[in-house]
């Protein structure tokens, strides 16, 4: 599988508005390799550097140092080769001219990519249908609701059939149904494409990243903290799996379980006067569970309840970044 995007020690500094002659580093030494044909997520809090990275990759911004290749072309001086094969959609933003209709605005953007009108109109019709916007095709966009304008902007990103698409918070501000439609559309677009399509997605929504991305990077303060599949990130960064086991007998001594192989950490507490004991195990993987159950059973006690806690990307994120994604700096845990 060939590489869609490759960055090597990519950095970007901006002049610090607060202090003269001082730079603020929005990105520092980012090295990434994104294979083509996947949805790659960039996850990070506000100001982490996601949008700066996307701007550099989409040729809107030059890096301060390092190198970025998009489809093998350098963003620095080969932007004219990159632009025909990319597109970008920023969620929450509008595009086009209020005086034109939805179809006219989309047509206009296809012309900037040199797509013949007949072909463009057919594509626009298809996409409007998929996104349930057909009946608004001939409506001027200054008469559309915010959500509809956003849908139109979303279609604009796909109508030129780019090889690499940058989606910057594409579902921002959309209602639940529209967001779901959008996610499904992107996933299907990548899955069903006749030639490999790559999507670089930034999002605030953990569930969205988890559901859509084949691979993702967690960014904070302009640096990549982790870069893997969502499954691996959850497993590695959040520390494997966790089980809660309840045993109903006051005289049960749980200390012996602590030293079993595969148990990373262990805590227990007596829940009530009848002697219900609750034990929380963090295990390196599921295989350690069998040994725990065997040990409890062989000691003559019965297990009342076993509950597996699924680690989420949020757990991995908190562990890596030190705070929740939705919160600010003050939310440090």
């Amino acid at each position, binding site marked *: 599988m060939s590489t869609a995007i490759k960055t090597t020690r990519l950095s970007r500094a901006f002049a610090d508005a607060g202090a003269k002659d001082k730079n603020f580093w929005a990105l520092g030494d980012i090295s990434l390799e994104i294979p083509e044909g996947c949805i790659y997520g960039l996850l990070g809090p506000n100001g982490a550097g996601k949008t700066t990275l996307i701007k550099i990759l989409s040729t*809107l911004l030059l890096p301060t140092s390092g190198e970025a290749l998009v489809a093998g072309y350098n963003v620095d001086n080969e932007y004219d080769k990159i632009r025909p094969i990319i597109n970008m959609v*920023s969620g929450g933003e509008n*595009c086009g001219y209020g005086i*034109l209709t939805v179809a006219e605005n989309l047509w*206009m*953007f296809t012309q900037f990519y040199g797509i013949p009108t007949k072909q463009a109109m057919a594509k626009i019709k298809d996409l409007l249908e998929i996104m349930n916007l057909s009946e608004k095709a001939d409506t001027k966009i200054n008469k559309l609701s915010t959500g509809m304008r956003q849908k139109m902007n979303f279609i604009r990103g796909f109508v030129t059939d780019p090889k690499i698409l940058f989606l910057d918070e594409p579902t921002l501000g959309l209602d639940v149904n529209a967001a779901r439609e959008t996610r499904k559309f992107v996933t299907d677009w990548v899955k069903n494409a006749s030639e490999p399509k790559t999507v670089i997605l930034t999002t605030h929504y953990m569930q969205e990243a988890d559901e859509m991305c084949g691979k993702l990077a967690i960014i904070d303060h302009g640096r990549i903290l982790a870069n893997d599949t969502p499954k691996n990130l959850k497993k590695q960064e959040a520390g494997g799996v966790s089980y809660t086991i309840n045993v109903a007998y006051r005289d049960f001594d749980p200390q012996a379980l602590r030293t079993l192989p595969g148990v990373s950490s262990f805590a227990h507490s007596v829940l009530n006067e009848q002697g219900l004991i609750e034990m929380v195990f963090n295990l390196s993987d599921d295989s350690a569970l069998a040994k725990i159950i065997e040990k409890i059973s062989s000691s003559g006690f019965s297990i009342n309840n076993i509950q597996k806690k699924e680690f989420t990307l949020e757990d991995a994120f908190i562990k890596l970044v030190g705070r929740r994604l939705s919160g600010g700096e003050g939310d440090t845990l």
Partner: protein
Amino acid sequence: MSMNELIKNLRGIWARAYVRIVGVNREPSWLIFELFFPLLPICSFAFVYKSMNAPSDYLGFVILGGAMTAIWMNVLWGMAAQFFWERESGNLTLYMLCPMSTMAVLVGMALGSGFSTFFRVIITFMIGKLIFGITLHVASYFWLFATFILTIAAVFSLGMMMASFFLLYGRDAWNILTVFMEPVFFLSGFYFPVKTLGYPLGAIASLIPITLGLDAMRQLAFRLGPETAFLPVKAEILILLALSAIYLAGARYLLKKLEYIGRREGRLTLRWQ
């Protein structure tokens, strides 16, 4: 430029011009704002000459100059400042992402604006001519029309060059444009022949293509025109041709240069300046 590139850019030009042409048709109120109201200051200046019992050709000079202000206003606010609005609305970012040349966007805007401005100037002039009963003595309709078109082309080329600055600058540049209103109306001789300014000042004013275009058109359209000529018509046409080429090349160079600076400094997507 390959054939494919050329077709892509031509499509882009047509698409951007389409916005302007359709936009004007869909907001019919422009007839009032861009035809009726601009007539008012024009008439005021004509009345100044009338109150002094000046020859009727002088009123014709004012009507023609006043009608031509439409071109200049369109270049300032519809061309040069348009990138400011494009950036505010988020469209500039999308233009930058597109594989066509940014020059195609500007040419498209110029053609779209030029189309509507062309009719606006003619209609305004005809109405003014009717109100004040001005008689034309046209030396050559062909050359008069050619000079008019050439003036529009040269002025819009200058507009494209000015527009490139809006890739980097925001409201400051928008406000600085206001400096190019009354001072240019004065320097370019919109309401009096530029010869009145004297040759040194007139020569500087000639850098604004409308100065020579207007002077040549007055010479070609009015009996008293040749008496107030700044330069011979042929020389003015040649200078206009040269200015068109220079400003077009300047626009191309500046767009490339300023786009690069914009990418380097991260100012292409900066808003609410």
